């Protein structure tokens, strides 16, 4: 376990050091996987099936932000639909436009679900979708999951239901137009929608519980519930599903969710503390679960504390630093007020002497100093040996007055 923790920290540090390379590479790989999965499922436009075109599109996705990937994959889906027939292309445009206008204009960050969920289904890890979303995003991702499932339903129905109708000589245009929205909401898809929503909400609820191992419990319960509800639902509604494939896919999804948990949440439950305290308004019952650490991580923390104490984080970026600035450091240990009073007295003395014609010169001598902190020491006013403080404190003397006593 210690080795895994160290590996995790090393990966995290590697990511922090090289994120300007890793992010584009990650987007490139994700785009490549998505485009290949889509082309395998609905590859009606031959141009987009070419390897070089896929690579070029993946490179473009690597350069653009993550929503660029969503846009390009949506355009690919529409292009394949258009290649099948104009009606299917128009329907695809309406479908994705509706998704954007109804929901994703408010939450653009969740738009990735439109593409990632169909990809997860192509790789048969569909149980990972509600469980992972429930763990990471919580109940708010329900709508984006529903739209992602609708997107998958469309991608799946194109070769299964729509393409045979389009290519058939017996079906009319009206049959094709009516079949497209109906293919989205089959009994199987409705079952999948209901099961996914229930699993997501339950996983999110269990994860929020104040108990130990809540993440592991939510993954276990979510996965079992997903496969169980699907099997029971298919038996009740007469839907055909491959039970062995579902079980195997769910097991794979559990592995994926455990990896997600490892990188997102790593608590050491053996060192959990329960604290109770109160203030004037509330009673507090707090459970403190420290993160798992290794010697490597503790050494990183020590180094980070030494190096990073000066650099402001985003949260404290505009907060005043408690550190003294240079000016206050220069005057550290010097009582400026008493020095000012002294120099004013001296000024008055000199002024009155001058008025009385004592002949005191008003010589003002300024000497260049090597550093600001020594400028006061460099001032020579009369007998320097008497005035200079051998202890190192800087004596503030009013500039340019001779024979100060």
């Amino acid at each position, binding site marked *: 376990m210690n080795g895994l923790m160290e590996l995790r920290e090393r990966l995290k540090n590697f990511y922090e050091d090289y994120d300007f390379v890793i992010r584009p590479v990650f987007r490139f790989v994700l785009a490549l996987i998505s485009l290949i999965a889509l082309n395998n499922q609905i590859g009606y436009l031959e141009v987009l099936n070419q390897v070089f075109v896929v690579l070029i599109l993946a490179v473009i996705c690597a350069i653009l932000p993550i929503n660029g990937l969503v846009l390009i994959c949506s355009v690919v889906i529409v292009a394949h639909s258009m290649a099948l027939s104009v009606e299917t292309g128009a*329907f695809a445009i*309406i*479908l994705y*436009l*509706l998704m954007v*206008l*109804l929901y994703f*204009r*408010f939450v653009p960050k969740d738009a990735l679900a439109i593409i990632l969920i169909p990809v997860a289904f192509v790789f048969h890890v569909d149980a990972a979708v509600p469980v992972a979303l429930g763990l990471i995003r919580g109940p708010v991702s329900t709508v984006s999951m529903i739209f992602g499932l609708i997107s998958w339903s469309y991608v799946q129905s194109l070769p299964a239901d729509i393409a045979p109708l389009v290519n058939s000589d017996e079906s009319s245009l*009206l049959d094709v*137009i*009516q079949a*497209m*929205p*109906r293919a989205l909401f089959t009994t199987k898809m409705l079952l999948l929608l209901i099961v996914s929503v229930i699993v997501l909400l339950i996983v999110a609820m269990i994860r929020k519980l104040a108990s130990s191992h809540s993440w592991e419990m939510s993954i276990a319960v979510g996965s079992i519930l997903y496969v169980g509800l699907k099997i029971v639902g298919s038996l009740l509604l007469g839907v055909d599903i491959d039970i062995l494939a579902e079980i195997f896919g769910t097991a794979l999804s559990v592995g994926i969710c455990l990896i997600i948990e490892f990188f997102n949440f790593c608590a050491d439950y053996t060192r959990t503390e329960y604290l109770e305290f109160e203030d004037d308004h509330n009673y507090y019952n707090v459970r403190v679960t420290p993160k798992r650490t290794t010697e490597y991580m503790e050494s990183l923390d020590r180094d980070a504390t030494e190096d990073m104490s*000066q*650099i*402001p984080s*985003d949260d404290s*970026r*505009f907060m*005043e*630093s408690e*550190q003294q*600035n*240079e*000016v206050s450091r220069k005057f550290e240990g010097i009582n400026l007020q008493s020095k000012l009073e002294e120099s004013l007295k001296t000024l008055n003395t000199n002024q009155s002497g001058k008025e009385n014609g004592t*002949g005191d*010169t*008003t*010589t*003002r*001598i*300024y*000497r*260049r*100093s090597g550093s*600001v902190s020594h*400028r006061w020491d*460099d001032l020579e006013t009369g007998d320097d040996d008497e005035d200079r403080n051998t202890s190192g404190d800087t004596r503030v003397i009013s*500039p340019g007055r001779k024979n100060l006593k």
Partner: protein
Amino acid sequence: MVDKRRLYLMIAMARFKDKKTDSSVRISNYHQRDYIAMKLIVNFLVTTVAYILLLAFYAMYNLEDILSNLNEMNFRPILAVIIVFYLVFLGVYTVIAFTRARIQYVRADADVEQYENALDRMNRMYREEDRLSETDDEDDYDYFDDDDED
């Protein structure tokens, strides 16, 4: 010599400007009412388009029934239902858009205010440094104002 505190403040401000110029600064250029009004107008147009697309989707779903009953249909109640649903649909999305625009504006305003405070602090640091360097410059000169010499 570079003041470290000023340097870190400038780094934080540059980071803020890099991330948020498009959003926070652009939003705070508007008055709150104008910004929310603009968002509501955009919302009205977008929601109307979305509703028309939803109607088209529904029509496609029930195309056979609609076409077969087209002659017997009474359009007035259908139109009334469509309009009522449109108003409810628009009302819901207007509330969402209003709330979102308000929250966005308040956050952007707070961010820009923090940025301006940081700018003020930085200007104070520059003024203080100029003041200190002026005092240094006075030290730099050999300035004899000797009245006795002939």
